[in-house]
């Protein structure tokens, strides 16, 4: 409720309107978002598969982390910047989009998983660096990461579809609740 007026105002700012109405700018930012997604998601998946012991079993986990994590972080930074611009172009509709919301929740959970892995599991890596199949805690983190990032990508792709959008009524009450939508009574 608090955010709604803020995003309404944001949608009226000249830059937001400009981005929204410029087909070229929006498409180029969207393409950069997909391109950096490949960089981030591709390498994150490979790291998760290594943690699960499903690929590159002879590569030390620490070497993978040391040499490829910077690329993953770079991909993530470009994703966040391009993603913020995409949101800024269509703030109100995105905020009330059910897939955008599920994406943000999954993103938060994926971030939490990354934090737990790097603060609890990874510090002991020297004990299992060369294990073909890392210990259970690392495998669980890898599997969770894989599932959560797939969820983020799929939710993100679905934001484009307006099946549950606020301006498409009637919707079930649960959908309107989940999207903070209050349809006008006279419709």
């Amino acid at each position, binding site marked *: 409720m608090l955010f709604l007026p803020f995003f309404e105002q944001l949608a009226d700012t000249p830059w937001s309107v400009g981005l929204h109405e410029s*087909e070229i700018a929006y*498409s180029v930012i*969207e*393409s950069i978002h*997909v*391109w950096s*997604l*490949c*960089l981030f*998601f*591709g*390498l*994150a*998946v*490979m790291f998760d*598969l290594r943690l699960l012991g499903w*690929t*590159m*079993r*002879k*590569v030390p986990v620490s*070497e*993978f982390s040391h*040499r*490829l994590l910077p*690329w993953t972080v770079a991909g993530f930074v470009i994703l966040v910047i391009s993603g913020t611009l995409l949101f800024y172009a269509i703030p109100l509709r995105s905020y009330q989009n059910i897939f955008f919301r599920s994406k943000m929740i999954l993103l938060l959970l994926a971030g939490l998983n990354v934090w737990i892995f790097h603060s609890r599991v990874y510090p002991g890596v020297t004990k299992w660096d060369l294990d073909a199949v890392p210990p259970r805690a690392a495998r669980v983190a890898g599997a969770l990461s894989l599932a959560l990032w*797939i969820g983020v*990508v*799929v939710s993100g*792709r*679905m934001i*484009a*579809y307006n*099946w549950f959008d606020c301006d498409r009524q009637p919707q079930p009450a649960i959908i309107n609740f989940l999207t903070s939508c209050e349809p006008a009574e006279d419709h």
Partner: protein
Amino acid sequence: MSLLPFFQWCYQSGLGVTIRTSTWAFPVIEAFHLLGFGLTAGAVLVVNLRLLGVGLSRQPVAQLSAAVKPWLIGGVTLMFISGIPLFLSESIKCYYSFAFWVKMTSLFLVLLFTFTVQRQAIKAGLTSNRPLLGRLTALISLGLWSGVAWGGRWIGFS
């Protein structure tokens, strides 16, 4: 000879019609298509960043390439299995889409390049003796895969 009749035939196919008339089919298949591409990108990046000297530099290229090969093939297979139905559902749009032809040309070239030139170069150990050659093959591969990604995204904008 024009390919248009073939594209029209694809458009009329049972699978194409089913996907086109369904609300959910296209988006769901499209999501798998994107995941397949992400997996492919991961396998491709591990090898190419290594060849560029900015990845897993302590690992032998041939060994890395062999280790990620099942995932590369898995990713490409998922892309094809999901991409063909997507194509059937909007083949006429694709025929007139410049982005579609950029994507298909890049895809054809990159698959050919990866499984012939680059593979042979890695197998023969050419990339370890001549790092510049390895870097060149990596840049060609990454450039062509970027063409696939951009083309794929832009089909949706036309």
